[in-house]
């Protein structure tokens, strides 16, 4: 019978103001809509983070063997500091139980893995240090933004010192194999130049010899995350008992349930019964003898039994987004590609300034959400992209983003070339 590995993604981006071309050159990095960001954060805090954390704390206390994992983006922690110390505190309470694992990701929930190895490494290292600071533990397992993954990235994570990496259990790679096993990437070496950069910027002193891939069981994960309240779905209404039957029947050694934390209370509202569902699971699992494990416990258990580890061979990028499970949600059209390229073209001049506020702002523009909002894939069908976008259209998203970029570019050009380094903020 498989054990259960629960991981929840926690993230909020910094949404852009209604920037105007007339302000380009004078924006002083004020790109974000503080009012909007605060109101979204508080809304989701009240609907999801606070009540869900309360439920989980109660469950962790009453079930000492219950385990969960979070990946909390750095920009989410930044927003906690601005808009919700209470939320941060409630996550800390969960960490104090010792039953919660925190994963590493790019601090800015960015697409840096697609554009710049150095930038990627710096962001992951920044995130690792932040998690250590706030939750008193060092992440051992890495999950990339939106589960974006390919072979090369698995080796980058291994060389950075991670034991495990998360990925989507995509059928096109798995074929008829079950996602409920652990996998390894095909063995190969990165270029010497890449390895040098990794050694220089990695968060840990040394590389790992092996890395294990944990695959999201997307059918069972999405039963909860997407279908829980869908009345036209054959599984409706989903009870904890019935879901547990499915889990027990799914075979293998671990069922990895990976989802956005906002599933609880925000995507699925409280009145759908999602919290009662969550509350019932640990007891039922205990009664039926199903264990829960964190990602690193899952890896340890797997390594202990020394079974051969099959290869998960992803030449092309995978992700957990949309039906396509590729990069098309962020890099599927001209404006998305142009926006990402233009943003990353500024990497060198931005970093040369050594201006921490400027670098931080440039990085906040890297959050994958900005590109997601520009997606025009099935735009006409009123799909999930529309639901999750704060702007009225993908073109509006691009308009605001391009103004921010223009302003940033002008600001960089206006700086005297050999200006003395400003003293970094303490």
């Amino acid at each position: 019978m498989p054990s259960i590995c629960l991981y929840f993604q926690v993230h909020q981006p910094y949404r852009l103001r209604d920037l105007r071309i007339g302000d380009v050159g004078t924006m002083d990095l004020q790109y974000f809509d503080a009012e909007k960001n605060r109101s979204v954060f508080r809304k989701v805090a009240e609907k999801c983070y606070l009540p869900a954390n309360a439920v989980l704390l109660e469950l962790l206390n009453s079930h000492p063997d219950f385990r969960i994992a979070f990946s909390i983006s750095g920009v989410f922690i930044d927003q906690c500091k601005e808009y919700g110390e209470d939320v941060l505190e409630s996550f800390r309470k969960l960490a104090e139980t010792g039953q919660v694992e925190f994963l590493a990701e790019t601090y800015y929930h960015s697409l840096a893995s697609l554009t710049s190895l150095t930038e990627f490494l710096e962001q992951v290292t920044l995130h690792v240090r932040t998690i250590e600071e706030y939750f008193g533990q060092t992440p051992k397992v890495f999950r990339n933004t939106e589960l974006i993954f390919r072979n090369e990235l698995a080796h980058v994570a291994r060389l950075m010192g991670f034991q495990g990496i998360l990925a989507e259990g995509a059928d096109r790679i798995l074929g008829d194999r079950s996602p409920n096993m652990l996998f390894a990437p095909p063995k190969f070496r990165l270029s010497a130049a890449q390895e040098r950069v990794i050694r220089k910027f990695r968060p840990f002193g040394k590389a790992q010899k092996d890395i294990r891939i944990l695959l999201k069981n997307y059918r069972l994960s999405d039963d909860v995350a997407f279908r829980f309240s869908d009345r036209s779905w054959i599984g409706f209404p989903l009870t904890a008992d019935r879901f547990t039957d499915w889990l027990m029947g799914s075979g293998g050694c671990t069922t990895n349930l990976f989802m956005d934390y906002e599933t609880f209370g925000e995507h699925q509202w409280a009145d759908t019964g999602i919290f009662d569902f969550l509350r019932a699971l640990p007891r039922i699992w205990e009664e039926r003898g199903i264990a829960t494990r964190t990602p690193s416990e899952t890896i340890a258990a797997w390594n202990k039994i020394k079974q051969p580890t099959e290869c998960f061979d992803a030449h092309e990028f995978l992700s957990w987004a949309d039906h396509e499970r590729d990069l098309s949600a962020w890099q599927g059209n001209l404006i998305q590609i142009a926006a990402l390229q233009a943003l990353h073209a500024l990497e060198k001049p931005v970093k040369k300034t050594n201006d921490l506020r400027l670098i931080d702002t440039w990085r906040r523009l890297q959050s994958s959400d900005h590109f997601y909002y520009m997606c025009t894939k099935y735009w006409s069908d009123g799909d999930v992209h529309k639901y999750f976008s704060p702007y009225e259209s993908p073109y509006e998203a691009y308009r605001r983003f391009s103004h921010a970029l223009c302003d940033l570019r002008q600001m960089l050009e206006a700086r005297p070339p050999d200006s003395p380094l400003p003293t970094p903020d303490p």
Partner: protein
Amino acid sequence: MSLHSLMFGWEYPPLHLGGLGVACQGLVKGLLRNGVKVTLVLPHANKTAEREVTVLSTDDLSASTMSVPSMLQPYDTHGSYDIRVGNISREECEIYGGDIAGAIEKYTAASVQISKNITPNVVHCHDWMTYGAGKRAARHHRVPLVAHIHATELDRTNFHPNEWIYGFEKKGFEAADRIIAVSNYTKNILTEHYGIAESKIVVVHNGTSEHLSSFRAPNVHSLHGRKDAPMVLFLGRLVLQKGPKQFLDMASIVHQRKPEVQFCVAGDGDMLPEMISYAIERGLADCVLFTGKVQNKEVSELYRRAACFVMPSLSEPFGLVALEAAAHGTPVVLSKQSGVREVLDHAFTVDFWDTEKMADCVLTILREKPLAQQLQSEASRAVTYLTWQHQASTVRSIYEQLITT
């Protein structure tokens, strides 16, 4: 089921006079392709044209057409009709009617008379001037009445209607067994401002004419690679409804930031003199071109030349020009107070009064090449899905439903 529609409609205008004639022609062709027989009654100010002529055909199908002597034109008002009638003889006034009310009465009587011997199973009429004829003909033939609404009096007058026209229109809506609205935007106006039951209204968006879907977006390099200054286009009658003043306000903001941009205001209307003075007042004398009336083939060239098309209408039931622009691969900025935004997703939308933002969208399109390219290719592709043949099949099923119940 064999279907025969007696339609009181409008001619395809030789000059670009707005969407009504274009939409009527598109719908008739679409209906013919869907196996519906159509008899089309048209107002025609030519004494010799009383006998039957066939002007509308597609493949080997054709609609029989009947001409009624009348000087009515799409979008007529009391004022516009009076101006035309001022130039004709007393004798002609007798035939056509001396004012718009008289003209409608004469048109209605003649239309019903001319079509009394055919045997339709549905009567279909287009916009308020034809509603009287539709009502009487439907009663005479004892068949259901479909009232098609392309533009309400409220759209044309920025919600300050002529009460007589508003009343005439409302009676038409009430008499109809089914109303076809060209957008949800228009449907809302009918329920909100005319008190029409929602259940009586069906939305059928306008299609695009065949000639549009055959346009290719121009080579993407041509837009930004060329040396001459970018041009921003307005196309429509110069009347309050179309927002020419908003266009000039936008132009003046764009001009301050990018003085090399040219603006073209294409179309005629009673606001033309006022708009010329306004442009001069705003310091736009050197960068705005007023074309007056434009021929259809000139229109095509204008779309192709434009780097951006702006439709700032105050209230636009549909907005066929925006689809035409998109079909030509021209990036579009649309008023949110329009129906076409329901079918044209790949465009910027702004409130008509927010000319600051309108200017910002235009400037962004001019500055950002990938954005312009994407709007060009996506919007023109989207247009090809919206054919009259498909839209007319919905109209056919509306007929069938009315006849069988």
